[in-house]
């Protein structure tokens, strides 16, 4: 099967306009007959379900949480990018497009990314109209901040809770459609299978997580908006429930998985405190604007940070990257931290952490404040106090969060941070219309592979999720469903539904009947360790080969020794989790296969064999300028399909931050 990305012909700037003007439409009477299933209610899912409901489609939305408002988009802190150029600093659709392509290390599609940049403005308009309370200036207009090393201020934000506010906006739009009867909501439901009829996705099997009952739902189309799969690493900044199950089931039904190995490791997270650790908490990227990152110059230095004099500290980012200093992109900052810790310079009890120090910023701001107030001859304590106030104004909530978790006061002692898995650029392969290679099956938001290439820029995830849901799928779905208006709703006693349900039921029974000795949690932790050690921030061929074998063995052990308490037909979180971990194990293997095959370093994928002399990522454009789309051919059997990436407008170059 050849992969057709269906990028419209013509100049980059007019592709999407042309598509919208010429795509097929469905008239209102027919829309009422067409049923759409949406899996997941994060930014992509909620916005898609709401928009499609508004248009008149009959929508069924599913989420595993107790309410659509809980989806993990809610935890995004920093902001959302849009090429509004409200700051008059030279921003434009093209610049946002260019920054995103470059940030993705030239591994994404020009056509998709340009469309993303061009609808970014509409997103902000839509959200403001919905009542999203973005930060404003005293003049009453929207405020912007800079983010992730771009040269313009294009990030819109609502304090440190932008994701929450955007999701609440989409959630409210969704609830309105539920009230109007256009969307039917199924919370505490998990999708466990795609139902295929005549080569098309025509429905799902879902499990009611409260009663444990399996349900069959028909849809003319199925939209997977189930988010990323960072939890394959066990520890990540994802929510505990975030999982790959929906897209993994789709993958096993024939949908190709694009670039599974591209994982974003965020440099500033609160480090692991012990074996009990269940998840990691992000400290916003914005902290790197004022915090200085350092480790002691001496290996294994056990002194308290404040006892280490200035000249015995190694500000390694400033040393290695004088031009960008502490503000290098996420992948670069993460790898540098790992390099120091691996070399034995790590700090804290685990030695897997570096300092993020605000002392000099506090004094700097304090002096500015003292200057503003015209006070002279002040002692250091007063200056520090003034500086504390300024820093509190800027980062107060983050400092508070840090103190709650660690019990340490970051105004007095430097923060300890370490990189953590944060986002997965890979996902189901989709074409320009967000449809997978399986007809009728779509994927939106983090669940698909598009737009971010090998590395995502800060504040772009929210943008993509909402672009897909509000502004792309309403057009592209219609273009495809226009051919389906004569398809009557298929009754769910169709043999394909029965077979799919039986498949799911058998698998659940199999899991329950293993009655082994080891907990699901324990298997998940073991998988996470393999993935983090061998397919994490830095990878090499030997490690990946080992990892593949270890994962295969782990899978075998899982299916013979896992223990799941409780019953099937009741609320049983252990059973839910077992299904998810079983899928993570299979995905983990594919990620390693993909990482092993990609003999280059790019963005979030760093292969130790492919680096420059001073340790920077080295791409191999001549061999790997393609999307790796993997087809599932059976256990441990994946076939590679390549979608070549053609750069017509941008010329790929080596990224440099020195």
């Amino acid at each position, binding site marked *: 099967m050849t992969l057709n990305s269906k990028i419209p012909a013509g100049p980059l700037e007019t592709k999407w306009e042309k598509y919208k003007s010429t795509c097929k439409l469905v008239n209102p009477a027919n829309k009422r007959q067409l049923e759409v299933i949406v899996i997941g209610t994060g930014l992509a899912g909620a916005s898609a379900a709401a928009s499609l409901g508004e248009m008149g489609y009959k929508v069924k939305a599913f989420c595993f949480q107790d309410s659509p408002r809980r989806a993990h988009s809610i935890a995004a802190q920093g902001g959302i990018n849009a090429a509004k150029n409200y700051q008059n600093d030279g921003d434009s659709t093209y610049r946002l497009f260019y920054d995103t392509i470059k940030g993705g290390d030239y591994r994404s599609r020009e056509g998709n990314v340009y469309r993303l940049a061009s609808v970014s403005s509409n997103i902000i308009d839509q959200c403001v109209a919905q009542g999203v309370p973005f930060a404003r200036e005293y003049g009453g207009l*929207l405020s912007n901040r800079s983010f992730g090393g771009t040269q313009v201020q294009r990030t819109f934000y609502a304090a440190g809770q932008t994701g929450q506010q955007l999701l609440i906006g989409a959630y409210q739009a969704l609830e309105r459609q*539920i009230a109007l009867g256009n969307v039917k909501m199924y919370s505490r439901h998990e999708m466990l299978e795609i139902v295929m009829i005549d080569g098309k996705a025509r429905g799902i099997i879902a499990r009611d997580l409260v009663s444990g009952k399996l349900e069959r739902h028909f849809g003319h189309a199925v939209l997977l908006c189930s988010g990323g799969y960072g939890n394959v690493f066990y520890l990540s900044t994802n929510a505990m429930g975030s999982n790959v199950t929906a897209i993994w089931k789709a993958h096993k039904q024939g949908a190709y998985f694009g670039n599974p190995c591209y994982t974003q490791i965020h440099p500033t997270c609160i480090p692991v405190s012990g074996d009990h650790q269940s998840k990691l908490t992000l400290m916003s990227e914005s902290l790197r604007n004022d915090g200085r990152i350092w480790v002691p110059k001496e290996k294994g230095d056990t002194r308290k940070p404040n006892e280490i004099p200035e000249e015995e500290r190694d500000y390694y980012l400033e040393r290695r990257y004088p031009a960008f200093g502490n503000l290098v992109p996420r992948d670069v900052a993460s790898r540098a931290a790992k390099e120091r810790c691996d070399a034995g310079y790590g700090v804290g009890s685990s030695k897997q952490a570096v300092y993020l120090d605000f002392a000099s910023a506090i004094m700097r701001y304090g002096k500015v404040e003292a200057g503003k107030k015209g006070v002279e001859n002040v002692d250091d304590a007063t200056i520090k106090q003034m500086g504390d106030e300024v820093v509190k104004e800027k980062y107060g909530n983050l400092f508070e969060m840090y103190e709650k978790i660690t019990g340490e006061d970051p105004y007095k002692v430097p923060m300890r941070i370490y990189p953590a898995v944060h986002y997965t650029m890979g996902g189901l392969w989709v074409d320009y219309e967000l449809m997978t290679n399986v007809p009728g099956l779509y994927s939106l938001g983090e669940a698909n592979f598009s737009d971010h290439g090998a590395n995502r820029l800060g504040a772009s995830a929210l943008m993509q999720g909402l672009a897909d849901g509000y502004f792309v799928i309403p057009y592209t779905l219609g273009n495809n469903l226009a051919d389906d208006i004569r398809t009557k709703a298929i009754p769910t006693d169709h043999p394909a539904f029965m077979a799919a349900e039986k498949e799911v039921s058998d698998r659940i029974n199999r899991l329950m009947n293993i009655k082994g000795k080891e907990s699901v949690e324990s298997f998940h932790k073991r998988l996470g360790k393999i993935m983090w050690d061998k397919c994490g921030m830095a990878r090499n061929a030997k490690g990946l080969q080992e990892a593949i074998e270890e994962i295969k063995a782990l899978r075998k052990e899982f299916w013979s020794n896992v223990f799941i308490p409780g019953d099937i037909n009741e609320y049983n979180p252990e059973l839910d989790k077992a299904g998810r971990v079983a899928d993570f194990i299979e995905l983990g293997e594919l990620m390693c296969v993909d990482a092993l095959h990609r003999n280059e370093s790019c963005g979030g994928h760093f292969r130790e064999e492919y680096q420059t002399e001073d340790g920077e990522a080295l791409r191999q454009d001549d061999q790997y300028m393609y999307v790796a789309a993997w087809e599932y051919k059976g256990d441990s059997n994946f076939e590679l399909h390549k979608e070549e990436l053609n750069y017509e407008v941008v010329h790929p170059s080596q990224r440099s931050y020195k």
Partner: protein
Amino acid sequence: MEHYNMNLTLKVWKQKNKNEKGRFETFNVKNISSEMSFLEMFDVLNEQLVAEGKEPIAFDHDCREGICGMCSMYINGRAHGPWHHTTTCQLHMREYKDGDTIVVEPWRANAFPVIKDLVVDRTSFDRIIQAGGYISVNTGNAVDANALPIDKQRADESFAAATCIGCGACVAACPNASAMLFVSAKVSHLALLPQGEPERKMRVVNMIEQMDKEGFGSCTNIGACEAECPKGISLENIARLNREYIGATFSGSAQHE
């Protein structure tokens, strides 16, 4: 910060499902690190139970960073435990010392029926939002985001109300099982913005009606909700809701959709 380990006695509410009666069960956990979060302590307990072949304790949780609003434990008489402006997932074990006994109950309100153990059904909150907690603007209807300047102070106040995470701690903490803080946060969020103006009156009337229908109590201004709200939503919002309601009642334009 000195780290230490502790042994604890937990009295936890166990309830098979909505229809069966629940009761307290006592569990002992050993070697709990002061660095664990409260939910990680529960993870340890659950792993221990699974190892013994028993069913673990069901509890709601997801983001574990205090923003999704899913976690919901009533700990020693306190919604989300004793820390100020904190969700259960952010509560850490350094709050406790060796030998402590901790009683953990689910949110208790008829409008939040127990699903299992500490898990409750909060879909009543969703239905209140469905009654009017939104601005009716279809995708594509928006004007330019800067077409309408909004007073910064109002925008900030609106944001403060909009930070509600819908966890239900206000209901759990309220002796009347009232949802007024939740409803008022949404009413305030939207009433403070010009975009919310057209539906302002209808919204407050319909949301209050739904709130009553769901079986939440009435507000007697006790203030326990504000004290326990992990996001610091202020009682000011309830005053605003009352104002909005009086305005809608006496201005005459409050009609059902």
